[in-house]
């Protein structure tokens, strides 16, 4: 016999049996059990296999500090990987499997790894698999070392609610200290929220056989807190304390439901998180049956489960005696010894005996404690300092933020009476009482003792690994952690860190405080990533911008797609993308394209300093732009890189309209605002984003003039040259017509306020139809502009492109006024002769288009190696030209017209000739046709 259920006691409901399976065997537990407590009660000893050596492992802890019992759970047809058996409430019908064990936890084929342990010391992976290439070994190692198996199925409705909550005093932890503090604060009139991670508050109060009295006391405190207006959230863990008193608490809603996350910024936080046992380091201390003393009392007190029949206790902390009383009262035979490294656990798969001082004592369970470790993680998140307490042999809170108080065992106050006083003082902002004397003899690991002494059970780190790290000079705690992976497992070293530090301190001949601790970071316990996402998902994260004319596009059977955050027509008609794009390109060149250009950014610059402002913002000289005229230009970053391109229209001396890439409008707006306030008098220049208030219909092609004439916006289209602007009206409403072209054909952009957009669009389509013109989508437009060599910023430019790489060199050499990025255009980098410049690439008319992203390569050196000298940015089949067109950024490309180059892509090589970016109508005859 090993673990068993006792007749009475605990918080379980013995009238409600629950049936579940573990590794294929059927078991029974009760309502209120965790998976761990139910299996322990059923006599199960082996809960899984260790990460690296596949050693059999049992329960060490009874709650989140258990590093061993990690399980996969199948419930309701859904798999949940990597659940902690000790914190997962038992549910009827759960199918539980040990992870990292095949075929099951008891018979694990990879257990043979353990026989090879001498060859798998700390740092082994780093050293062994460096040559020739870690990536060759990685898949196999990951498969062998991985924990649970991820289900590829997406679980519907697994969404966290992320709420903002408020309280004056947040009490974290519902044990004796937490309940006392919450009650005192609530009765003093404060708004109190108490969170406790168990299904029922009470902390370690349930961990003794006087359970009934304790339960009555806990109930009385809960009632008093609620009566005084306080709130209590159970199953709720404070996962992190962040800057400026920000706390996030996660409420577990059970298997299959994402946690509810609450974010708070309380005026005060009282930390009453308790303490956990530190393991005793001795040979084979990882054998199933070796458990923390605190876990055994918790299993007994909370779940009515006795951990074993013949128990050896290795502990000398003062509370040991009470624990032993409780275990004996429940029917166990208990023998106590001082904790020592000289012990050896005996037993092949589970504990059978312990050897001490040359004698062997038969036992089925060894309960150990080298002292209590306060849970001060959240104190450290908040920036609180720690100090070493020699009497307690552990770190306790020292100086810290004045809005956080630590009380009870978390503060190293292990006496319940003192903890209650401390809690009341903290709740009422009174000075903390002194901690009181506590004497725990140090229990040091002996690195010279024989056998393997385990420190980090989840990551299989032994005392010898720490000694190896020490020999190889990985002596700083941060190096020790990364070299041995000590404390890097899912439990983040909750049990192992102090043992590891103590071992390293011993090896270095230092004290533990001299050795130091690693950083504590959120989350305190593992939580689903979903808890960070909540409603910040999909379209709620990035809402789609919708066009005013969307109903018109849908009526014309448009295929809608996302372009730069906007839902825009990709093409029209039901004949598929390829046919539609070809048809629309031909229509644009032979008659006219009617396009919705409303997504293009439109920003007005207004005020007496508007002219000097735009001249500073643009690379191109804009100071002499006359009223009614338009000029193309680049905006640069201060590093001289192309940030955006577009046209600037001058309405009058005090008013300009910037048009920018649709996906860039927000960034351009921020860029303009920055310079407006940094360099200009904000009272004399104002900027205003009108993108979403105006709609623009672009009509481009040989028949464009006829269509625009029919719209009735202008009396005459004579004396309206390319790159000019007219203010006018459309059916009585204000309108603007701009002659700019992104296709190379005669083109008019007609802009009206949204209310007139539908009438304008429908009229243009109606006039255009008999002329052979019609709607054209974004995909055909991108082909039309590529035929002309017009760039799309961010597609045909990259993070190194300067304007002179695109053939716009004049302002760099001639503009005298200051402008953004000016000085960067004369750096050594900017002056290099081998800069990548924009070119076209031509291939034979019957060939397929070159792949976008393919490299332009050249043979270099005597060894015949090839190197990339650039890459293809845009590439399409041009229906107009009847052959492919491509744009590329190629080193020295502008000086290499006509040169034949190799194009390399995915192991295939093709040939192309460098050409001008403009493949269609290079004379520009069509622009005024």
């Amino acid at each position, binding site marked *: 016999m090993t673990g068993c259920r006792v007749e009475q006691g605990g918080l379980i409901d013995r009238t409600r049996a629950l049936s579940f399976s573990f590794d294929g065997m059927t078991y029974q537990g009760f309502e209120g059990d965790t998976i761990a407590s139910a299996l322990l009660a059923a006599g199960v000893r082996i809960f899984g296999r260790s990460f690296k050596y596949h050693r059999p492992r049992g329960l060490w802890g009874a709650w989140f500090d258990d590093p061993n019992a990690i399980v996969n759970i199948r419930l309701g047809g859904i798999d949940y990987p990597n659940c902690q058996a000790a914190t997962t409430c038992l549910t009827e019908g759960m199918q539980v499997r040990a992870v990292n064990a095949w075929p099951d936890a008891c018979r694990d084929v990879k257990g043979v790894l353990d026989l090879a342990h001498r060859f798998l010391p700390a740092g082994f992976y780093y050293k062994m698999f460096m040559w020739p290439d870690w990536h060759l070994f990685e898949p196999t190692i990951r498969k062998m070392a991985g924990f649970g198996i991820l289900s590829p199925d997406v679980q519907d409705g697994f969404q966290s609610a992320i709420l903002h909550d408020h309280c004056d005093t947040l009490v974290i932890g519902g044990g004796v200290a937490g309940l006392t503090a919450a009650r005192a604060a609530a009765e003093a009139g404060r708004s109190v929220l108490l969170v406790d991670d168990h299904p029922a508050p009470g902390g370690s109060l349930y961990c003794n056989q006087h359970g009934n009295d304790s339960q009555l006391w806990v109930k009385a405190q809960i009632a008093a807190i609620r009566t005084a207006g306080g709130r209590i959230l159970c199953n709720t863990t404070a996962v992190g304390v962040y*800057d400026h008193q920000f706390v996030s608490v996660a409420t577990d809603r059970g298997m299959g439901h994402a946690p509810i996350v609450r974010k708070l910024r309380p005026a005060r936080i009282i930390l009453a998180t308790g303490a956990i046992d530190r393991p005793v380091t001795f040979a084979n201390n990882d054998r199933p049956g070796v458990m923390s003393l605190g876990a055994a009392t918790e299993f007994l007190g909370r779940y009515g489960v006795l951990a074993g029949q013949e128990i050896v206790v290795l502990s000398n902390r003062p509370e040991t005696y009470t624990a032993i009383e409780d275990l004996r009262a429940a029917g166990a035979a208990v023998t106590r010894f001082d904790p020592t490294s000289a012990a050896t656990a005996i037993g092949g798969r589970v504990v059978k005996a312990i050897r001490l001082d040359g004698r062997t004592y038969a036992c089925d369970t060894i309960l150990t404690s080298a002292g209590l470790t306060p849970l001060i993680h959240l104190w450290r998140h908040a920036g609180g300092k720690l100090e070493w307490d020699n009497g307690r042999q552990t770190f306790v809170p020292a100086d810290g933020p004045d809005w956080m108080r630590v009380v009870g065992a978390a503060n190293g106050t292990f006496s319940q009476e003192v903890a209650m006083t401390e809690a009341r003082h903290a709740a009422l902002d009174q000075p903390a009482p002194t901690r009181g004397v506590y004497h725990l003899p140090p229990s040091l690991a002996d690195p010279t003792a024989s056998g393997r002494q385990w420190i980090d059970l989840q990551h299989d780190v032994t005392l010898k690994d720490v000694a190896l790290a020490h020999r190889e000079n990985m002596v700083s705690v941060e190096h020790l952690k990364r070299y041995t992976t000590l404390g890097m497992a899912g439990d983040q070293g909750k049990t192992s860190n102090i043992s590891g530090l103590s071992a390293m301190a011993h090896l270095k001949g230092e004290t533990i405080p001299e050795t130091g601790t690693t950083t504590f970071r959120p989350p305190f316990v593992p939580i689903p990533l979903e808890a960070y996402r909540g409603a910040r998902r999909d379209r709620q994260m990035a809402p789609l911008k919708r066009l005013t004319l969307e109903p018109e596009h849908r009526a014309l059977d448009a295929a809608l797609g996302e372009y730069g955050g906007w839902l825009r027509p990709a093409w029209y008609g039901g004949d598929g993308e390829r046919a539609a794009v070809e048809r629309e390109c031909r229509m644009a060149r032979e008659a006219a394209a009617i396009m919705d250009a409303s997504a293009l950014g439109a920003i007005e610059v207004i005020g007496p300093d508007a002219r000097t402002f735009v001249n500073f913002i643009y690379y191109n000289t804009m100071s002499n732009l006359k009223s009614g005229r338009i000029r193309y230009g680049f905006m640069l970053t201060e590093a001289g890189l192309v940030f955006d391109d577009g046209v600037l229209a001058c309405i009058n001396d005090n008013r300009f309209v910037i048009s920018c890439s649709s996906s860039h409008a927000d960034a351009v707006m921020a860029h303009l605002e920055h310079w407006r306030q940094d360099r200009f008098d904000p009272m004399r220049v104002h900027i205003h984003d009108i993108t979403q208030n105006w709609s623009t219909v672009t009509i481009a092609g040989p028949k464009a003039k006829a269509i625009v004439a029919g719209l009735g916006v202008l009396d005459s289209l004579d004396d309206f040259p390319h790159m000019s602007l007219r203010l006018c009206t459309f059916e009585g409403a204000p309108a603007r017509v701009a002659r700019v072209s992104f296709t190379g054909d005669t083109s008019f952009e007609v802009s009206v306020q949204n209310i007139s957009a539908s009438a304008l669009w429908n009229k243009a389509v109606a006039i255009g139809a008999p002329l052979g013109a019609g709607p054209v989508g974004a995909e055909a437009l991108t082909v039309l502009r590529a035929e002309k060599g017009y760039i799309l910023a961010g597609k045909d430019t990259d993070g190194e492109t300067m304007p002179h790489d695109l053939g716009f060199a004049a302002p760099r050499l001639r503009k005298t006024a200051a402008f953004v990025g000016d000085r960067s255009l004369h750096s050594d980098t900017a002056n290099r002769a081998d800069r990548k410049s924009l070119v076209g690439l031509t291939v034979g008319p019957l060939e397929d288009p070159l792949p976008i992203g393919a490299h332009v390569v050249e043979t270099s050196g005597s060894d015949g190696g090839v190197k990339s000298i650039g890459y293809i940015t845009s590439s399409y089949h041009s229906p107009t030209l009847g052959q492919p067109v491509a744009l590329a950024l190629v080193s020295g490309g502008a000086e290499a017209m006509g040169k034949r180059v190799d194009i390399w892509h995915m192991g295939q090589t093709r040939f192309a000739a460098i050409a001008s970016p403009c493949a269609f109508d290079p004379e520009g005859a069509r622009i005024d046709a």
Partner: protein
Amino acid sequence: MQQFPCPFCGLRDEREFHFSGEAGNIRPDTTQPVSDADWRDYLYTHENPKGVSREIWVHTTCQEYFMMERDTVTMAVIGTQQMRRDTA
């Protein structure tokens, strides 16, 4: 999540703000010769002090730039100040 006091809107969550740069990083007059070193320092060399730091931030919801003094170790905000010249 930090909270910053916008001089115009009051205390708001950190996510509403963008860092713009360290205070006092003056743009060289590029109509006059500027050495490579001076331009490099303007673009890339930052004090990044440990402790009290004077920085320019923008509150993206009201779009106003302002100066903030804060402690980069304790994350305490010492104060904020508007940049507008008095136009009265």
